[in-house]
């Protein structure tokens, strides 16, 4: 962490705002509270990041501190900005599929699915039964490994260097091996297509997947036995970084973070995209909206995902994995637009596409859950110690490839 002591004015400088008299401002309930510094001392501006282990990549927070207390916090983005959306306007629809892997590189398969879903909506493409099952299996495997690693990183930021993260990675490795044997790549899978999947799964692969899924409940039990009752974890996370449900909804927070605040909104249940209406699973909800609830919701979601996996792997039907009528060469959607979204491990991942009848999209937009979940980072951090900022930030679970695009 690079610490620079500067005059107090710099950190709390007011940003240029729209004319306040003519236009309404944020209402008090959805505005970050103003915390007055105590005493006469100078404020310290700490620039956390961009290169810091706790920032999960290149991300910077400008924090104004009064002693140990956070008075103001402004995230600074863009270190990994590569104008992903503009690249799409020069490439064909299919050529963007491998690029979506690089958004949230922990969950490339759910990125693939979200993009495929949006394009399928745009052209009205159906997906064969078998492909739907494979998509669900891969998405839930992705969710399990993402949540396990997210918790691992969170605990690492708490000071438990390595051990819990390595437990998560031990399990993640098995899932990545499955991905590798199916798609040829561990993280950049580039697997889904408009109207199905690229290659079929084999019986040995399914057998291997069943074996891995069989071992998952034991892993979660072990993980929980290590962590959930841990005194340090409880002391550091309970009551820290509380997010009120009404603010969470208003700020567009999605995913485990929203559900930890007690809002029952899971796109798998709401949209029933794919074939999620066929599986029995529950939506875990938190009570307090603090870091501990976010941790707990992720653990419970892993258990529900394992339940979905067990159901899906029992009944994978036969048939093609690609709609034989799907158009691949000369793919030119009719003029129009579509917004497709799925419940990615980090929240609502959406793709918005406008076609003007050309082979490349006129507009391609990613709705990144990681970026939008950071909207309330300041609200959650204000008034807490600087050490808690690292934890609160970790509990949001972001990947910078998706934040900056």
């Amino acid at each position: 962490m690079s610490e620079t002591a500067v005059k107090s004015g710099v950190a709390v400088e007011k940003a240029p705002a729209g004319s306040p008299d003519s236009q309404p401002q944020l209402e008090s309930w959805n505005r970050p509270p103003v915390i007055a510094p105590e005493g006469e001392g100078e404020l310290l501006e700490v620039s956390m990041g961009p290169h810091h282990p706790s920032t999960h990549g290149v991300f910077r927070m400008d924090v104004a501190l009064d002693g140990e207390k956070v008075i103001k916090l402004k995230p600074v983005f863009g270190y990994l900005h590569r104008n992903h959306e503009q690249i799409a306007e020069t490439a064909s629809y299919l050529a963007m599929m491998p690029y979506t892997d690089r958004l949230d590189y922990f969950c490339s398969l759910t990125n693939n699915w979200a993009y495929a879903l949006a394009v399928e909506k745009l052209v009205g493409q159906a997906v064969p039964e078998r492909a739907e099952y494979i998509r669900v299996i891969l998405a839930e495997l992705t969710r399990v490994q993402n949540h396990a690693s997210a918790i691992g990183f969170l605990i690492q930021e708490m000071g438990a260097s390595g051990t819990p993260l390595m437990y998560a990675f031990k399990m993640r490795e098995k899932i990545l091996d499955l991905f590798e044997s199916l798609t040829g790549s561990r993280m950049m899978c580039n697997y889904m297509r408009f109207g199905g999947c690229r290659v079929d799964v084999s019986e040995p692969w399914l057998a291997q997947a069943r074996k891995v899924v069989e071992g998952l409940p034991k892993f979660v039990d072990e993980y929980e036995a290590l962590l959930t009752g841990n005194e340090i974890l409880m002391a550091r996370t309970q009551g820290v970084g509380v997010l009120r449900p009404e603010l969470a909804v208003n700020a567009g927070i999605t995913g485990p973070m929203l559900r930890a605040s007690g809002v029952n909104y899971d796109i798998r249940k709401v949209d029933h995209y794919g074939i999620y209406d066929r599986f029995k699973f529950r939506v875990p909800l938190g009570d307090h909206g603090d870091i501990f609830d976010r941790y707990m919701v992720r653990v419970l979601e892993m258990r529900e995902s394992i339940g979905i996996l067990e159901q899906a792997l029992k009944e994978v039907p036969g048939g093609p994995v690609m709609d034989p009528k799907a158009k691949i060469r000369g793919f030119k959607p009719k003029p129009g637009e579509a917004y497709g979204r799925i419940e990615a491990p980090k929240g609502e991942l959406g793709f918005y596409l406008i076609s003007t009848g050309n082979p490349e999209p006129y507009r391609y937009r990613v709705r990144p859950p990681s970026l939008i979940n950071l909207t309330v980072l300041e609200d959650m951090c204000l008034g807490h110690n600087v050490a808690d900022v690292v934890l609160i930030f970790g509990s949001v679970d972001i990947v910078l490839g998706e934040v900056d695009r």
Partner: protein
Amino acid sequence: MKTVEEIKAAIEAAVPGAGVTILPNGSPSAQHSLLLDTEHAFAVAKFLRDDPELSLDFLSNVTGVDWLDKEVVEKVKVTKQVPKEVDGVQTMVDETVEETRKHVEPGYLEAVYHLFSMKKKYGPVVLRMRTKNRTDEVELPSFTPVWRAGEYQEREVFDLYGIVFKGHPDLRRILMWDGFKDHPMRKDYVEPDDFEYEPTAHDKVLQRHKEHMAKIEAEQGTAGATA
């Protein structure tokens, strides 16, 4: 689930004078959108959020779209009075002629909002707003005071498209750095020639390399002449 027509009717009943136009969507997704007039847009947004029937409490996605000036060529049938000799007498006779006319439809920047309802579990309701042109009148009302989800996304639209959101509490560049001048997602954006490309055999890169070197040489040539 409410149809766009129902939502339009509800808006017009609640916000007097609001101009709402339904823009049909040709794709099978059938996500039709509502074009709002900028004057009443803020009141409409507030109504959509607070109305217990609609309760669109969740703003999911905010985007900009750049529509360039469009040259429209259309064939118009025009009835003209043409002098004609009928039975040896000069008279004016109506005649229908087909003419091709060209006119330029001015471009605009568009902000697109995708709304959902977490309470009533439906969506998306698509709202759009358009600026008057692409150059100087690029102001739109900000929806961030209504839905805070727009805070970073509107900043991004401002950064990449140059739409100025009035009423946004903290409108700064978000992805590009503060000193950056242009708006890179605009369709007519030209990359600055400030980078020397490796002279590979790759056609596009090679072309850029040649252009860059030609520019450098031209600059050095003029500098040498003045010295």
